[in-house]
């Protein structure tokens, strides 16, 4: 009886070990696929261990190693809680990828993520490192001219300078962005770059009239997806009014009422128009039964 029990127990334990082994074993490309899937779910914690296993199993410098190391570095950068040692290790891994990445597709992304790491406060006591960030953005622009990441790099580069709140640097960033727009007039981030110029005019340069003009120009370039239109119009109208550009202010207050059908700003826009001596358009009531027919 005892022997039989022992045998059954051993069998069960063996089965359990096999199951655990199969569960914990990295599954090569399958493991990487799962890791990327988890990255898609923002589950950096789980994917970090999968990338770590995949990196250990592959030849350093190989494509598989580069892929796994990039994934691991990103997971360390973004998994929570944000720990100093994770961020330092992420920086080391990015630096290694950048070192061996010349001419490889991984270079612009490794540089971009390294720059974002430097450009962010991650943990208690962390310091922003704009110098490293600027070097990385400049390298993307200089070394990877065919990468789609050059436009975000240009945007971030200007952001670093403008967000320093130094008037000279901000003016320099505006000029630099204008040159970029002239060089790449059809770049997908051109209106976003223009919006950044507008922000720089507001702060630190404190020139509301130029800020309003830049926002208007950004809209003419085509507002990017995700812009909340009534907030945008409200901002332009207020800036213009602050700068004494009544004509633009009136135009944007009117647009809030006539173009944005469901906005909390409409009533106040009407009052502002009245104060500016203009008869405002009537309010659209999206909740009135006769206004609810919908349109294509």
């Amino acid at each position, binding site marked *: 009886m005892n022997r039989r029990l022992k045998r059954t127990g051993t069998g069960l334990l063996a089965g359990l070990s096999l199951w655990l082994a199969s569960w914990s074993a990295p599954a090569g490309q399958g493991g990487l696929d799962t890791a990327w899937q988890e990255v898609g779910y923002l589950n*950096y914690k789980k994917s970090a261990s999968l990338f770590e296993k995949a990196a250990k199993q592959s030849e350093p410098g190989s494509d598989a190693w580069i892929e796994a190391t990039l994934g691991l570095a*990103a997971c360390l950068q973004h998994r929570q809680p944000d720990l100093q040692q994770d961020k330092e290790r992420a920086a080391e891994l990015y630096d290694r990828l950048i070192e061996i990445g010349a001419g490889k597709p991984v270079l612009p992304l490794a540089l971009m993520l390294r720059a974002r790491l430097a450009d962010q406060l991650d943990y208690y006591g962390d310091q922003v490192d704009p110098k490293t960030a600027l070097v990385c953005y400049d390298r993307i622009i200089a070394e990877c001219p065919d990468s789609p990441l050059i436009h975000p790099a240009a*945007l971030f580069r200007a952001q670093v300078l403008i967000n320093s709140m130094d008037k000279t640097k901000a003016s320099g960033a505006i000029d630099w962005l204008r040159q970029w727009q002239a060089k790449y007039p059809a770049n997908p981030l051109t209106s976003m770059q223009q919006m950044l110029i507008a922000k720089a005019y507001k702060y630190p340069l404190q020139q509301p009239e130029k800020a309003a003009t830049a926002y208007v120009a950004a809209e003419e370039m085509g507002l990017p997806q995700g812009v909340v239109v009534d*907030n945008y119009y409200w*901002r332009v109208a207020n800036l213009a009014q602050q700068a004494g550009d009544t004509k633009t202010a009136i135009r944007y207050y009117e647009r809030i009422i006539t173009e944005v*059908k469901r906005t909390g700003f409409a009533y106040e826009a009407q009052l502002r128009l009245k104060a500016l001596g203009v008869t405002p358009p009537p*309010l659209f009531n999206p*909740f009135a039964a006769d206004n609810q*027919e919908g349109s294509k």
Partner: protein
Amino acid sequence: MTLRKFFQTYVGVAILLASIIYAMVRVAYNEATYKAPDVTTIRICHWQLEAGFRDALQELIDEYEQLHLKRTGKKIRVMQLPVSERGYSQFVNTGLIGGTAPDIIEKGFAKGATDPAYTARFFSPLGQYLDEPNPYNAGTPLEGVPWKDTFFDGLQAAYDRQLLDHYYVPFSMFTVRIYYNRDLYRQILGTDRTPASYQEFLDVCQRIREHGQSKGLPIVPVAGSKYQGDLFRRRYETPFLFELISQTDDDFTGSVDAMESYLAYRQGRWSFESPRFMAAWKCMLEVSKNFQDGWLAAQRDDAVFLFVQSRAVMTASGSWDAPSIKKQVAGQFEVGVFDFPMPTDHPEYSKFVAGPATEASIKGGIPWAICRQSRRQELCVDFLRFCTTRAKNESFNQSITWLPVVLGAKLTPDLEPFRPRIEGFVGDFQTDISTPVKMITEGNRWSVLSDRMTPEQYAVKAKEVYERTGAEGFQEKLVKDGRNNRNLERILASQLLLQHIGAPDPNGRRDEKIGQLLLAIQEFGHKVAVRQAQFEALQKETERKP
């Protein structure tokens, strides 16, 4: 063994056995009904235990099941899983983590259903479906209109600005109003006319109090608790601040958050002791004086009970309570509803109050999300589409007397007073710059409302703690905001990495998402940088002063 002894010994076992048998029968019944080989089942869970909700939803379900059978020849069952608010979080979280979550989940309460990181993991983005027309709208004025544009707000409020997609579809919307006992009101005041102004409201309250005193009846004007107190506070305090919001909204968002108001405070642009705040708190005190004695210790339900018992003429609540209140008073008295009268023509307050807050940007409620684990994604979408045609949304909301969210869906006449008001001001003025400020101002606010502290005393306390802890609170918020920005960075990194490895992009929206993330990071980063610079400048200026 005596019968008594037998009963004492075996009653526990009997109950246990009966419970087991009942559970087995129930499981077998459910299995037979919902897991029959020829039946496809989808499960939908919610916490709406209010009167009428389950019946209204069941009506939609029954119609959908029949229609589906007729159209496809296939049987389906949509199974409601109502769960109380107390257990909802555990039910949803364990289901999501364990892979046994229902197919459609009412989004809320549970971390798994609200936190953006979990939302991305556990719920399906609905953007691609919402951009397509709802096929059930064929032959109606909404035919060919993208599904999202058939909702009153184009589902703008349902758009997740962190995850950059839609993750739910709403069924209803809600507003807050004053409910009144029409019979009692008429009996005391001799009229049906509800107060059109704040002064009239106070006069009505005065007459109700006098009536109660003269007749020796325990009748109060307003049934209150902290819940109702807060509803009144929100409606009466903020309108006093709209002008201040407009003056201090430096980033033109329409609202002034705690950091923006702190900077304005340091620049000497407002103070707690200003006539504006004094008037706001005095006004709130005037209102709360009309609540029953000891209202501060009462629960929300106690106030409703007082109202239902005709011991209070009025109370305040949202439209979500309309069916429950009406059901409770059925056969006793008629319920009327009116909007909060604003002190716009008051001799003292009107210089601060130009109007109420707008309800034009109201959000849709009862948010249904589809679980990513569900194997019946398309069926779930189809069911939600069926429920959100104009006719179905109208019938659902009419039967539960809630406000519909689909364009053109009509309100029942008794819901007219709940129709959102578009005239009004936008914004909020937040002052909770630090945890001590939040705790002390919130705590003492109840003392003001219950007349245990004067507005002047409250202002002195608020000022003291605000000035003592504000700078530290500001810096903490700055760091916290910077960390919140990290969430955007996490999503951006995920999208850039997936783009880099060439991961499938089923909706073809990755570039759009990356663009939106870049924009959000730009907005956020600039805001934090501006505030930091302004704060440092103010600190330097303070240090320079002798």
